């Protein structure tokens, strides 16, 4: 396909462990916030107001700056009915779009399948991190998962090979050993496909660090490193349209104040470096970053932290995002809470569907499993 218009790219940043909505988008003028959060709050002198009701915490200036420039949509009250307080069940639901039953296939994998129906580019979807998230897993959909961009390639560590010729011969044997064969069973087939994908992906992705150069200095923390890796692969123009990475742990039952602040300071700085890097290479306008977490945390604090809650906030960031607030901040009134938690008022599948439809240009129904209300933040 020849086109001067660049394909849309989606970067998914998962906030693992349940991010505290109330201390991320702080309802600082609501007395119920102060009543419920006597200990675990963002003090008045540390709020960074967005308007006369809501605020960020003051340490995330760069994050606020993105919002002020109109490049961030904040989506309120995201979640689903009967939200389980279990991280794993909730994350499974977010990953598979199956709140009622146990889902197998990941929604991101379905996106990748629809972006590349013949599975021609194993780098269409790339995960950075340890292990593949369930959201990207689906039999027959090749994806690449990279732990370390710098060293990636089959037999790259077999020191006993005397020459590159010997390595090539072994790689040929490897490809034949992993070739599809009838009647070997689903696990062998999965291994075969994954092995061949690894072989292909490695050949291409090694171009990314070779081609990369930038004046941007990323901070030395995990999310900054991950977003730098995303930038390298994006800038190498390898056809990747979905990136996945995560940051955490956000499971702040205890001693929340310091750890929650640290995580958000890291994210705020990493996103700032990431977009500066893309802009330096004139490669930012086809990129949207979305942030989500499996659920929010309980309205009432537990003294030093917060327990598992329900509704949360999601974020969409990018040059082409219609910045602002979307949806409604759920009510903090006792009678409106469900088991002490903010009641979700926007189905996460509508949030996904908006991105899938309006940003990636795909039919969202088979991906999110039905028709859900969309928003127009992109």
């Amino acid at each position, binding site marked *: 396909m020849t086109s001067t218009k660049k394909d849309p790219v989606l970067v998914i940043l998962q906030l*693992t462990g349940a991010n505290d909505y109330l201390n991320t988008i702080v309802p600082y003028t609501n007395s119920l916030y102060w009543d419920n959060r006597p200990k675990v709050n963002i003090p008045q002198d540390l709020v960074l107001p967005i308007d006369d009701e809501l605020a960020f915490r003051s340490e995330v200036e760069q994050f606020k700056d993105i919002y002020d420039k109109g490049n961030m949509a904040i989506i309120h009250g995201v979640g689903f009915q009967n939200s389980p307080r279990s991280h794993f069940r909730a994350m499974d639901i977010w990953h598979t779009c199956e709140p009622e039953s146990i889902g197998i296939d990941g929604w991101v994998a379905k996106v990748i399948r629809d972006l590349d129906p013949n599975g021609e580019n194993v780098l269409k979807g790339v995960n950075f991190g*340890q292990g593949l998230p369930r959201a990207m897993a689906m039999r027959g959909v090749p994806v690449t998962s990279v732990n370390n961009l710098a060293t990636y390639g*089959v*037999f790259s560590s077999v020191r*006993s090979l005397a020459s590159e010729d010997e390595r090539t011969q072994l790689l040929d044997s*490897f490809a034949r050993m992993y070739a599809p064969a009838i009647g070997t069973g689903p696990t062998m087939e*999965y291994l075969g496909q994954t092995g061949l994908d690894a072989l292909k992906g490695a050949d291409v992705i090694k171009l990314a660090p070779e081609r990369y150069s930038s004046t941007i200095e990323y901070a030395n923390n995990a999310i900054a490193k991950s977003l730098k890796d995303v930038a390298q692969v994006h800038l190498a123009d390898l056809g990747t349209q979905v990136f996945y990475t995560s940051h955490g742990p956000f499971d702040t039952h205890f001693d929340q104040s310091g750890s929650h602040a640290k995580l958000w300071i890291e994210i705020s700085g990493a996103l700032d470096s990431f977009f500066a890097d893309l802009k330096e290479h004139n490669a930012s306008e086809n990129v949207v970053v979305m942030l989500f977490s499996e659920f929010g945390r309980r309205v009432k604090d537990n003294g030093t932290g917060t*327990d598992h809650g329900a509704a949360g906030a999601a974020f969409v960031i990018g040059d082409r995002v219609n910045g602002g607030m979307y949806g409604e901040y759920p009510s903090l009134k006792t009678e409106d809470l469900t088991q002490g938690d903010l009641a979700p008022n926007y189905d996460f599948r509508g949030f996904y569907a908006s991105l899938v439809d309006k940003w990636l240009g795909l039919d969202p129904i088979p991906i999110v499993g039905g028709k859900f209300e969309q928003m127009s933040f992109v």
Partner: protein
Amino acid sequence: MPERQEIALMSHLMRRAGFGEPRWELDVRAEQGYEAVVEELLHPENQPAINDELMYRMLPGYEGAQAPPINQADWVFRMVNTKRPLEEKMALFWHQLFATSNAKVDNPPELTRQIAMFREFGMGNYRDLLVELAKSPAMIFWLDNHGNHDGATNENWGRELLELFSLGEGNYTEDDVQNAARAFTGWSIAPKIPRNPLGRFYWRFEYKPEDHDEEEKTFLGHTGNFNGEDIMEIIVNQPASPRFLARHLYRFFVADEPAVSSWNTTPPNDPEAIDLLVNAYNESEGDIRSILRVLFNSNFFKNSQYARVKSPAELIVGTVKIAGSHQGFRPGYNNLALECGWQGQELLNPPSVEGWHTGTAWIDAGALMRRVNFAAGVLGDTSQPGVRAMINWVRSAGAITPQQSIAACLDVMGPLTVSDSTLRELLTHALKSGDLVWDSDEAVAGSEKKIGKILTLIAASRDYQFA
């Protein structure tokens, strides 16, 4: 001489109940007889333990290691060198089930102590183990029970105890979670000594009666002024407990199962096997050793060869054990520990309280590449003592054809049975490189190199990914 089939079964047992053993040691085991070996594995107390004093003298820095990966290397050293393989494998089992992570605990020595506790209690009574777990300072800190107070409960430990450690989702209510949490109020840790400037200190379990909720609690249909031990007593007598434990044991030792988060709605692949393990639990009143005895002697276990994807620790430790690359006190265990993390299983730092996703979830393109590169790199290195021994073992058959050389290499690496497609490619490769002959120095060097390449390919095969 035992039949090849018996050796293959012994190889299977030692891969599952331990971390695998070199081919020639399996001959000795097989002579002992299968059930006798199971009995030996079930009684680690009859075998010498790792001598901690000696180990810490020979491996300076390991004792009370303050930071990853040295604390992880301490454990990998034990996996490779233990004479009590099942004790070590059970420690890994409990670490997977009661997953506690340094990401939050931030006290490596304390986690190392938790693993030592699993060694001590991991094959005893389930109730005793759960009580020890509730007293484990690393666990208390990990799931915030030191922040669980009379009148201000923190439900984290109470919830995960029921959901992830003993009953499974769907077998308790939200009220049960709250009441379990209340029963564990006061189960805390003594004030910690500040880390700076001297480093981390061990923590200590402390029961604080003044912070314990003395009101009546209703838990799983029982009512009383319960304390933590009472909760464990009620849990281990719930029908859901043995089923949950049985499914975890089956998944860890026998065959891959659907993801744990689906167990509430997905039945086990082999319900009869689970029933058998549940009966063993009930008959022995939760004696873990008795359940394991039934498991390893069962037909479903014996028929489960290659039915599990190896975890990274199994792949890495199993590979270095047969390659003989890491025996005894020597440097290099740090790299093995790091490698576990790079393949997706950072020991003592699982991704969450859920533990690792297992089975095909270990495998994605990045992880598979690391697994292949690691095993092929180690087993293709003909200077490693175990690899040299394998070469000599193959050489003892004299001059052999390409077909015979493949059969001999598969035998010495397991014995392994591989799929037709793998076998075909191995043969194609061997036919190109020709017979193994040993009649001159040059021929010997050539044959050794050929064997090295065959071992590299076997280690890189799909089949090698299975335990």
